[in-house]
């Protein structure tokens, strides 16, 4: 589960906080859209949740760990339980797609046999298994995005975060990805997806975290039972 209590975030060198007094809870095995206009703080919230930065103030608990007081080794272990699809893919250019995708399992110490089996399974599911030996630089945006999604999905993370994961995908692929998210949620994974794609949100209505100017636009509804829950999610 995710619990933020009066969390603020002020990056160094920036005069004002990019997130202010954010309080929200996302229970285990739930899906949330992360919505808001550009500059609202969606990326900053994702940076907090992916542990790229720590809150400047407030209390943040992630998967049962208090992040504010956690040691480096605790944060390292916590990161291995989180899958993230960044908007810029963040694939390592010198490595093959297979090595990029296999990385989270290798870091967890999985055997090479299991790693290969799972990596090829997820690559095949995302229809990029033929790209396993290619370098990311030689791929199209959509292919890179699918490789990044494969890396986030491998090993079934307990928390899956995605920043605009469908912006380079075709409609059919986007729908397929949403159904995968649904499967993960059914297996107990907490999923948060940041998007500007209103059509996608309409297609799969679910509860949302809406940010505006670094704070919750409408803090009350997101803690209530599914107001809009009528679609696949």
């Amino acid at each position, binding site marked *: 589960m995710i619990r933020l209590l009066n969390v603020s975030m002020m990056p160094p060198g920036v005069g004002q906080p990019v997130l202010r007094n954010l309080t929200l809870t996302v229970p285990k095995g739930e899906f949330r859209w992360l919505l808001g206009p550009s500059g609202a703080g969606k990326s900053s919230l994702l940076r907090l949740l992916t542990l790229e930065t720590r809150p400047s103030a407030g209390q943040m608990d992630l998967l049962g760990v208090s992040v504010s007081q956690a040691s480096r080794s605790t944060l390292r272990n916590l990161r291995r339980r989180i899958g993230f699809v960044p908007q810029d893919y*963040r694939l390592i250019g010198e490595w093959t797609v297979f090595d990029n995708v296999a990385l989270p399992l290798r870091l967890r110490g999985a055997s090479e046999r299991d790693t290969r089996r799972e990596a090829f399974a997820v690559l095949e599911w995302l229809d990029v298994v033929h790209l396993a030996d290619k370098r990311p630089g030689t791929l199209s945006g959509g292919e890179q995005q699918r490789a990044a999604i494969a890396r986030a999905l491998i090993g079934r993370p307990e928390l899956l975060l995605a920043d605009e994961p469908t912006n380079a995908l075709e409609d059919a692929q986007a729908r397929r990805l949403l159904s995968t998210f649904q499967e993960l949620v059914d297996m107990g994974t907490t999923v948060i997806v940041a998007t500007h794609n209103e059509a996608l949100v309409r297609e799969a209505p679910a509860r949302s975290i809406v940010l505006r100017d670094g704070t919750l636009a409408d803090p009350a509804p997101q803690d209530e039972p599914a107001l809009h829950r009528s679609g696949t999610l």
Partner: protein
Amino acid sequence: MSAPVSPGLRSGSLPLLVALMTLLAGLSLAGLTGVQILAEGWSSAARNATTIEIPSDTPQLEDRTHTLIQTLHRTAEVTNVRELSPQQVQTLLAPWLGQVSSSGHLPGLSLPVVLIVAHTGTPDLGAVVHEALPEAVVEEDRRWGERLNGLGSSLVACAWLAVSLIAAIAVLSVGMTVRRSVMAQRKAVEIVHFLGAGDLTISSRIAGRAALLSLAGGLTGLLFLSPVITMLARKLAPFSHETGPALPTNTWTDIFASWWATLHVLPRMLLEELGALPLIAACLGWMTAQTVVLVWLRRLP
């Protein structure tokens, strides 16, 4: 090849850099060994010898000199007493008193009798000589020995300082190279960090590569050094007691055996130190890279 879990080290220049440092360190070590041997030789020679001068106007010079020599022979720790011939004394004094005349004598000067006493330990020869022949002057070479020892120690310290400086420069160069490499791969390092790679996982991969490149550099440096060391060994060969028979040089094995036999003239310690240089370079490379990367990673949350 092992599965990648972290970016490696990018540096084409590191082996060359380490090779040059190894070359410099090898030359310094050779110099250091030479100075150590020289200092030890000076010190030992001076420490174990005493010069006794008996003025030429001493009454009954010949008999009393003979008596003194007998007394010295009986003294504990004295191993040898040698009386210099007048020609040897003249040769000894020529640099200060000018050329010896054609007759073989220095003009207007009667030469003293000079005894060189070799001994072990530190016998009190002053008391022995004073009792037997009070006119004699005892020149304790030990004082010169101490001065030479001091000079030798200073030279050895300078050589060690040079070796330490080279090591420091090597560490600094490897550190800067590793840092540049990490900065060039900053994005990849951050990706693996945020996917949960441990600091030691990241640093060990880079340090392992740095150690390997440093080892390669060290071996190359040793290769650069071998002609210089071989030349030094050939220069030293005539002074060595271990000049074995010349080996045939028909095959590469013979050539190598001959080269190896030449090197054996050099002190064993120097050969061991030179042999250890690539390993030392690899260790320094590994430790420096580990430190640099671990410190750099501290800035990440």
